[in-house]
């Protein structure tokens, strides 16, 4: 269940675990292991008698359609030399603030932004104030953006050649990990007001990211956040991760981030 996005279906999957206890107690679930060692879970049987059952082998990736659409997006971006960044984080880590600052400071590259939130135009309004074209996607109850939404959004935005496209995903460290949007780089933002163990609490997001931005470093003197430890955890999950430590409000550390953006678009 997505505990970070608060999309709240009933808590069927609660696991209760005491301090120091190794194994877990599941609140629900028909998970069991058979004598041959296979483990599976199933919904309950409905016992209707069917005489003519036949089984069709499908062998199809369930997210295959999203992956195909993402590849189509990727092809489009490549043809136009649009470098696309998918920004993911918990709510409040500073994605929009980093975007506002970046868009204000980078004047020599055309930029565009796709904003994802469950509700409101607030982030799009903040970005629009910088003068950059922006499109807001409201996902309603949806906890992530998908490749099709991105396709619709960039068609609407009319991207320029040789430009940067920033996608701010829905604030949620769980679900967006599964959905390829066709981006060039996935950037996970974590702020120092969150726990330095976030990378191991939400490993799949850090596993699928290319870049990790550690934001709000201006607040380091006031919080218990061990940057070295956070990086160490993140690297345990994904040894390819590259880091930027910065403050989107004071501007500290932004030069390296800007250099990286410039280098990316030239290729």
């Amino acid at each position, binding site marked *: *269940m997505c505990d970070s996005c608060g999309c709240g279906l009933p808590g069927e999957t609660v696991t209760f675990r005491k301090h120091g206890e190794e194994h877990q107690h599941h609140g*629900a679930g028909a998970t069991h292991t058979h004598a041959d060692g296979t483990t599976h879970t199933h919904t309950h049987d409905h016992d209707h008698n069917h005489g003519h*059952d036949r089984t069709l082998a499908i062998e199809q990736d*369930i997210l295959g359609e999203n992956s195909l659409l993402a590849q189509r997006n990727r092809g489009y971006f490549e043809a136009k030399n649009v470098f696309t960044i998918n920004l993911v984080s918990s709510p409040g880590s500073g994605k929009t603030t980093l975007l506002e600052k970046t868009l204000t400071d980078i004047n020599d590259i055309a930029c565009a932004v796709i904003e994802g939130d469950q509700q409101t135009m607030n982030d799009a309004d903040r970005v629009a104030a910088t003068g950059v074209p922006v499109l807001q996607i409201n996902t309603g109850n949806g906890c992530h953006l998908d490749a099709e939404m991105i396709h619709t959004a960039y068609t609407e935005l009319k991207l320029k050649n040789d430009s940067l496209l920033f996608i701010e995903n829905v604030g949620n460290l*769980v679900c967006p990990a*599964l959905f390829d949007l066709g981006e060039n780089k996935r950037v996970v933002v974590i702020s120092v007001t969150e726990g330095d163990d976030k990378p191991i609490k939400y490993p799949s997001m850090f596993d699928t990211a290319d870049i990790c931005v550690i934001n709000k470093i201006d607040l380091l003197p006031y919080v218990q956040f061990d940057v070295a430890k956070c990086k160490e955890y993140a690297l*345990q999950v994904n*040894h390819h991760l590259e880091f930027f430590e910065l403050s989107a409000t004071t501007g500290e550390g932004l030069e390296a981030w800007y250099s990286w953006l410039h280098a990316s678009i030239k290729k």
Partner: protein
Amino acid sequence: MHEMSIAMSIVDIACKEAQKDGAKSISVIELDVGKLAGVMVDSLMFCYESVCKGTPAENSKLLVNEVTGMGECLKCHFEFEIDSFMALCPQCESYEVKIKQGRELKLKAVTVNE
């Protein structure tokens, strides 16, 4: 809720395949779900039942085979079972481990009837 959109994709794919086969209804949908796929099986099951309503898969059973995680150490090439992304090589203690199996999210088979 991504388990909801995943459940919708599953039922969608299964119904299309059943239709192609000329079947009227679906009794079982079988999946392979890796331990590192990022999907909560309990939550998927919950969504599944509601998504099936009003489709040929109504009242069908969802069977989920768990696929264990396998990693390969990039330092010493040892292969071992893993159950998280923070896999530590038991042989040389490196964290540089490539995930070889466990991210599967696959619709394996659909059982249909006339």
